[in-house]
């Protein structure tokens, strides 16, 4: 199971070749054959395994970023610029409860 047993699969050329497939792999849209090939490669190539894991983690961390709110003052100025101030809705729950 170690790299020495299947050295032919652990070459910079192989790692480079798989780089373009990582996006599809992470999203589960990579073809079955290439998927098996990449997974076999990851068994012997620790670097590629780390890259795949940390790439997926990077995406997941960005998905967890809290979405910034639209501050009420910004919305008010937008409606003013658009001549829509009379339509400003009050009590929509977007009041700024916390200091920014």
């Amino acid at each position, binding site marked *: 199971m170690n790299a020495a047993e299947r050295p032919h699969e652990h070459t910079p050329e192989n790692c480079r070749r798989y780089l373009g497939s990582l996006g599809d792999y992470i999203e589960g849209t990579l073809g079955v054959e290439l998927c098996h090939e990449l997974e076999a490669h990851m068994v012997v190539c620790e670097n590629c395994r780390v890259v795949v894991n940390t790439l997926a983690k990077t995406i997941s*961390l960005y998905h967890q970023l809290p979405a*910034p709110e*639209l501050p009420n003052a910004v919305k008010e100025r937008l409606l003013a*610029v658009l001549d829509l101030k009379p339509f400003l809705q009050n009590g*929509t729950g977007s009041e700024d409860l916390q200091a920014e």
Partner: protein
Amino acid sequence: MSRMDDGELVARLKAGDQAAYAQLVEEQAARIYRLALRMMGNETDAEDVLQETFLSAFRSIDSFEERSSLSTWLYRIATNAALMRLRRKEPEQVSVDEPLERDDGDLLPRQFFDFCCLPEDDLLRDEARAEMLRAIDGLPATLRSVFVLRDIEGLSTEETANALDLSISAVKSRLMRARLKLRERLSTYFSQGPVLPDTRQ
């Protein structure tokens, strides 16, 4: 004011109905502001982009052909506004004929620190999140726009391609480049261990 569906809303926008304009702002402004903030990296520029987007949308609503949804159309206007502004601010970052579709050399991973197993507290603390935002700012604008639409705003590959006038394969390729660059930067950051606020320069 009762809610209108997309088709009715578009018809009333085209007729110049002020209540329809207000509904569009009500429904989409928060999303556009979020996009603008992630693209521009600061609140002042984000607000300018937000205002430009709606001014431009209201001016050009007659040319909206409903081939995409209203929200994708607004994303397209907002991204263009953001890219124009970035081009003025950092012209070297947003060249029109960028050589992005080739030359994978700079994308080869160099950091192999496995930060997946770090405690969630380390990964999610404020300082780490600030670094994540700085990392977005550090992306070339053309990669940033794809990453923000796909991975922050959650648009599909097709919607992103539509909003940015790119092919599906260009979206996929730029997204991959953006993600690899961010992974590289976060790996470097997390490999240095937690930085206490009072020891930070």
